[in-house]
């Protein structure tokens, strides 16, 4: 197609509509071909496949459920959460492990803000391989390990991807606290040493429930202590749908005294 004229260039550009790729958002999300069991297509609000080494971000309403799926077994979902519209309230990883008395994420864990409230709860988890202590990778470290860490290079660093995602919500590098990651596990030994347990395999998924309106940032990039010499990261499926936040009658609300008080604090600002 001749693109030497504005008319030709326009025709060429418009002819691309309808092209599908393996990693792309689907709009509207209700067009996603395989909604989760029990979810009506019309309730889908986010349907995307994120490339290995890619990132994504979205604002989700309170109550929305967000399912991340490790399609091929080598995804790693580095996650940051902020309260939508007031990003000075954000994920606090230290409180998330300390208040819940557990360093390992799994079903029933609550992701806490720095204001003593629940940002999200872990509704289901078929992976069990997650990490709260290692954070994500940096430009410097990926350059040392893989020869490159730039966002458009072959081994994008998580912090660089977070920087881009954050910028699209008016946030800067100073707004990037420690993150958590799903689908690549780390265990802590009695001497404090770390063991990388890697992936649970293809198809593992984690479902989070937004307990407050959230700005969600996700970087899908190799875990910082992944021992493999080659940068390895595979695509991740992201689906979200309208649902209800945890209520006082939900077993999760009463699962622990710390969690109950966190939900009470959350209710105080979301009524």
């Amino acid at each position: 197609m001749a693109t030497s004229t504005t008319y030709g260039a326009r025709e060429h550009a418009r002819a691309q509509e309808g092209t599908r790729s393996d990693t792309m958002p689907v709009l509207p999300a209700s067009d996603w071909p395989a909604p989760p069991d029990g979810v009506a297509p019309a309730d889908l609000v986010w349907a995307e496949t994120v490339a290995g080494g890619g990132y994504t971000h979205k604002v989700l309403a309170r109550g929305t459920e967000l399912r991340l799926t490790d399609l091929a077994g080598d995804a790693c979902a580095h996650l940051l959460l902020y309260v939508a519209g007031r990003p000075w309230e954000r994920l606090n990883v230290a409180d998330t492990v300390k208040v819940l008395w557990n360093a390992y994420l799994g079903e029933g864990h609550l992701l806490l803000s720095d204001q003593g409230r629940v940002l999200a709860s872990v509704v289901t988890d078929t992976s069990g391989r997650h990490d709260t202590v290692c954070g994500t990778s940096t430009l410097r470290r990926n350059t040392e390990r893989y020869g490159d860490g730039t966002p458009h290079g072959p081994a994008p660093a998580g912090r660089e991807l977070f920087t881009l995602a954050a910028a699209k919500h008016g946030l800067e590098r100073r707004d990037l606290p420690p993150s958590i990651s799903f689908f690549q596990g780390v265990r802590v030994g009695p001497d404090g040493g770390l063991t990388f347990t890697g992936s649970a395999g293809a198809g593992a998924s984690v479902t989070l429930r937004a307990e407050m309106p959230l700005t969600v940032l996700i970087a899908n990039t190799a875990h910082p202590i992944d021992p493999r010499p080659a940068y390895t990261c595979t695509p991740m499926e992201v689906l979200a749908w309208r649902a209800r936040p945890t209520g006082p009658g939900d077993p999760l609300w009463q699962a622990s005294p710390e969690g109950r008080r966190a939900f009470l604090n959350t209710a105080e600002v979301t009524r």
Partner: protein
Amino acid sequence: MTLTDTPVLDVTVPARAPWSAIVRAGQELTITDLGGNQAVDCLLYDAHDTAVRYSAPDTVHAQGGIFLTTGSVLMSNEHTPLMTVVADTCGRHDTVGGACSKESNTLRYGHHTYSQHACVENFLIEGGRHGLGKRDLVSNINWFMNVPVEPDGTLGIVDGISAPGLAVTLRAETDVLVLVSNCPQINNPCNGFDPTPVRMTVR
């Protein structure tokens, strides 16, 4: 710059109080636990660019473990060294527990603790003197605090292993702003339920 026996700074930080100082590249900061088992919450910033600051996760994954002691390099969020632990008579310090806040105290102990002092307040008060705000607070070091992790992931602040006179010495690898909250916590064993003063010496 040469190290001398005469400190350029030697102060006692009262129980519960905040403190900060710029430690120049090559200088050494010694934190002495005067009363024993006093948790010293600590954040580090590149003195010339505070967007570059202590990163607990980078420190943990760079050294392959969550406990700090002699030889540990305290890394920034850009994965550059800020300070190195060059001496430590305590033997273990915490990287994962973070700071107490009035808000987290309501979850950990109950809403009756909301009126009490907390480290985040100290960080905001002292950090504000250097242009730092809430967005600049990240997971911090807790000198002298003991936070073991059990095989099932259970984690918590337990009785300290520090004692009066034990100390940790940090060498600055670049000009570093050190921000400290001498933890006011009285609801858990991090201070033996009794906050005490600490001594800060820069040579």
